[in-house]
C-alpha cells in the first residue's frame, strides 16, 4: 500500500528529520504534538498539527489511544514513532495492526521478542551469536552457583530494562543476594517486570552496534557498524562509523552476527543490534537489539548515502528491501556529536529555557539535525537533546578536525550546552587515538575533578 500521509508520534529533532524525508518523498505529514510543542519547529514544518495532550509525556506522547485516534481522525495511512516514547511499545504496534494503520517499525511480536532481554539472549544463542556469560536467576542457590561460574565483578540486569537502566554491579559474592533483591524490586517498579539475570562485567568494553534493515520476510542486510563508546552514565555522547581499530575478522563477524540475529526474527524495518566488544580478548558479545531508528543513525547515512527513514517507509509500505548487501558501500568516516541543553559545570544538570540565539554550523561534510532556532524553547518535560552535528570526511582524522571546527562555529545562547565538554572529548589524546572503552568519559571527568581539587588546594596554600 502506498503511504501518502504519515502521523509522526514524536517531537524534537527526530520529528523534524522525519518530516524532511516525507517532504522529499511527497508524503503529507501530521504531527501529533503535546501542548508544550504546539509552536515548535517541527509543528511549523508539518502539514498539519494535532495536539494529543498536555505537556506531560504520559498524557501525550505516551498515550497510545490518543496517538492512534489522531492517526485515524486525520486519515493518516501510517504512524512513524521515531525513537523513545512509543517506538518500542508493543501496545502501539499491536493497536495499529488491529486498526489497520501501518506502523513504521517491526511487528508487535518482534518488539516483544527483543524487549524481553532474556528472550533476546535466548534468540541470540539460537542464532549462534555469542552472548556475555550469564543467565537467568531462579533461586538464591542458583544465583550463587551461576555467579561462581561467571566470576566477579558481574552485573545484575533487569529483564525488562535496557540502555543501562535497571543494572547493578556486584564485586563480591556476599553482596549478590542484596543486589539481586534490590535490582528485582527496582525492576518491578520501573518496568512492571521483577525478573533479573546476571552477566559477567566486561571491563574496558566497547559499545559497537550494527545497523540492519529487514524486509519482514527473512531478508536482512547490514549497513556497517557504529562505535558509541563515548557515554556518560549510559547516555551516548559521540558516535562514529566505522568503529576504529577493530580487526577485519572481528568487524566482519560482528556484522554477520547482527544479520543472523535479525534473520532469525524475520525482522521488519530498521533496527540496531548492540554488542559489547572486548578489545583485549578480540571478542564480542550480544547485548540487545533496538527495534527502531536510533538517534545516531545519521553517521550511517553519511557513509552509505542511504536515507534510513525512506527505507523504513518503503519497507512499511510493502516495497520490501530495495537494496541488496552488494549495493551497500561504506565511504569514509562520519562522527556525530550530540548537543544537549545541560550544564557540564554543574554535573550535567538539564538546562531548559528559551534559546536567545542559535547559530548552527554549515558547509561541505557537515550535517546538523535540529529543531532549535533562535527563540525556540527547550521545555523541561523532555530529554535535553537540542541537535546532532555530524561530520563526514575521507578518514577519521579529517572528520574529527571538521567536527571540531563545526563545534567551534556553533553559537547557543540562553541555555547551557555540553559543547565545551564535547570539544574536550574530541581533542583528548585518548579519543583521538580511537577505540576508547565505555569507561573513558568517567575517567576524563574524574581526572578533571582531581585537577580542580589540586588547583583549589594550591589556591588555599597561596592564600594562606
Amino acid at each position, binding site marked *: 500500500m502506498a503511504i501518502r500521509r504519515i502521523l509522526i508520534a514524536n517531537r524534537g529533532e527526530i520529528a523534524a528529520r522525519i518530516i524532511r524525508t516525507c517532504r522529499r518523498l511527497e508524503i503529507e505529514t501530521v504531527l501529533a504534538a503535546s*501542548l*508544550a510543542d*504546539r*509552536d515548535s519547529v517541527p509543528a511549523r514544518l508539518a502539514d498539519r498539527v*494535532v*495536539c*494529543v*495532550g*498536555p*505537556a506531560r509525556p504520559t498524557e*501525550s506522547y505516551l498515550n497510545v*489511544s*490518543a496517538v*492512534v*485516534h*489522531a492517526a485515524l*481522525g*486525520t486519515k493518516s495511512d501510517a504512524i512513524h514513532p521515531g525513537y523513545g516514547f512509543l517506538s518500542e511499545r508493543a501496545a502501539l504496534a499491536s*493497536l495499529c495492526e488491529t486498526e489497520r494503520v501501518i506502523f513504521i517499525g517491526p511487528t508487535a511480536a518482534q518488539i516483544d521478542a527483543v524487549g524481553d532481554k532474556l528472550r533476546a539472549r535466548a534468540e541470540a544463542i539460537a542464532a549462534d551469536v555469542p552472548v556475555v556469560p550469564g543467565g537467568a536467576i531462579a533461586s538464591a542457590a542458583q544465583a550463587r552457583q551461576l555467579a561462581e561460574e561467571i566470576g566477579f565483578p558481574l552485573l545484575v540486569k533487569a529483564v525488562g530494562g535496557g540502555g543501562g537502566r535497571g543494572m547493578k554491579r556486584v564485586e563480591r559474592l556476599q553482596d549478590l543476594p542484596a543486589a539481586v533483591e534490590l535490582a528485582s524490586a527496582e525492576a518491578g517498579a520501573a518496568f512492571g517486570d521483577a525478573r533479573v539475570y546476571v552477566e559477567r562485567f566486561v571491563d574496558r568494553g566497547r559499545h559497537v552496534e550494527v545497523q540492519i534493515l529487514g524486509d519482514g520476510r527473512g531478508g536482512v542486510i547490514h549497513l556497517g557498524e557504529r562505535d558509541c563508546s563515548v557515554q556518560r552514565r549510559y547516555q551516548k555522547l559521540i558516535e562514529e562509523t566505522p568503529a576504529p581499530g577493530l580487526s577485519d575478522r572481528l568487524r566482519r563477524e560482528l556484522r554477520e552476527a547482527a544479520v543472523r540475529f535479525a534473520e532469525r526474527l524475520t525482522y521488519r524495518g530498521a533496527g540496531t543490534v548492540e554488542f559489547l566488544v572486548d578489545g583485549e580478548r578480540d571478542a564480542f558479545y550480544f547485548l540487545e537489539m533496538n527495534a527502531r531508528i536510533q538517534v545516531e543513525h545519521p553517521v550511517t547515512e553519511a557513509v552509505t548515502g542511504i536515507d534510513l527513514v525512506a527505507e523504513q517507509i518503503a519497507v512499511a509500505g510493502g516495497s520490501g528491501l530495495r537494496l541488496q548487501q552488494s549495493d551497500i558501500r561504506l565511504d569514509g568516516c562520519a562522527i556525530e556529536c550530540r548537543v544537549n541543553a545541560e550544564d557540564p559545570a554543574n554535573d550535567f544538570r538539564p538546562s*531548559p*529555557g*528559551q534559546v536567545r540565539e542559535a547559530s548552527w554550523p554549515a558547509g561541505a561534510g557537515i550535517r546538523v539535525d535540529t529543531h532549535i532556532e533562535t*527563540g525556540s*524553547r527547550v521545555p*523541561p518535560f523532555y530529554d535535553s537533546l537540542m541537535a546532532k552535528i555530524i561530520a563526514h570526511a575521507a578518514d577519521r582524522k579529517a572528520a574529527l578536525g571538521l567536527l571540531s571546527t563545526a563545534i567551534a562555529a556553533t553559537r547557543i545562547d540562553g541555555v547551557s550546552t555540553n559543547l565545551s565538554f564535547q570539544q574536550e572529548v574530541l581533542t583528548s589524546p585518548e579519543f583521538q587515538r580511537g577505540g576508547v572503552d565505555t569507561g573513558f568519559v568517567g575517567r576524563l571527568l574524574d581526572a578533571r575533578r582531581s585537577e580542580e581539587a589540586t588547583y583549589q588546594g594550591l589556591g588555599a596554600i597561596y592564600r594562606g
Partner: protein
Amino acid sequence: MSLTAAEVAEIVKLVEQSSFDELTLEIDGLKLSLRRNGAGSFAAASPALVPVLDPNIVTDEQNTVTASPNTVTATTNIVTPTPNIVTADPATHEVRSPLLGTFYRAPKPGAAPFVEVGTVVEEDTVVAIIEVMKLMNTVRAGVRGTVTEVLVSDGVLVEFDQSLMRVRKSG
C-alpha cells in the same frame, strides 16, 4: 509549566481585588508580569503568542499588550493553549476538550443534543462526549450559565484543549 487562559484570568482577578499594584510571577521559566492601571508596558521576551485579557484591547506588533485604565497590563512568553489568541472575557467561559478525540453533541446518533445555544447549564451538566478509541468521555460545562456558542460540529476530530463551546456565566 504553562498556564491556561482561565488560570491567567484567575490571577488577574486576584491582583485586581488585592491592594497590590504589581505582580511578577516566575515559575519554571515562565514569567508573568501584571501591573495595575496600565502604567507602562513590558516587551515580551519571545515572539510567542500573548494572552489577551480583553478582546477589545489593542495589541501591537511587539507582542505588547496594553490594557485600558483600571485594568492590568500583562505580557508573558507562555505558549497559548490553542493556535488562536486566547480570549479571557471574565463573563464568558470556554469549555475545552479534555482529550484528543471525536466530538459528539448527543449521547447517540439521532438523539437530541446534550445542549443547544441558549441552554442553561450547571457546573456538572454534561455538554458533550469525546470518544477516544471507542471509549466515551463526558465533558461537563464547568460553570453555571447559558450556552452562547457551539464551536465544533458533531463527529469531528478535536484536539486536546480545543475550545468546544462558550458559556456566559450567571450569578
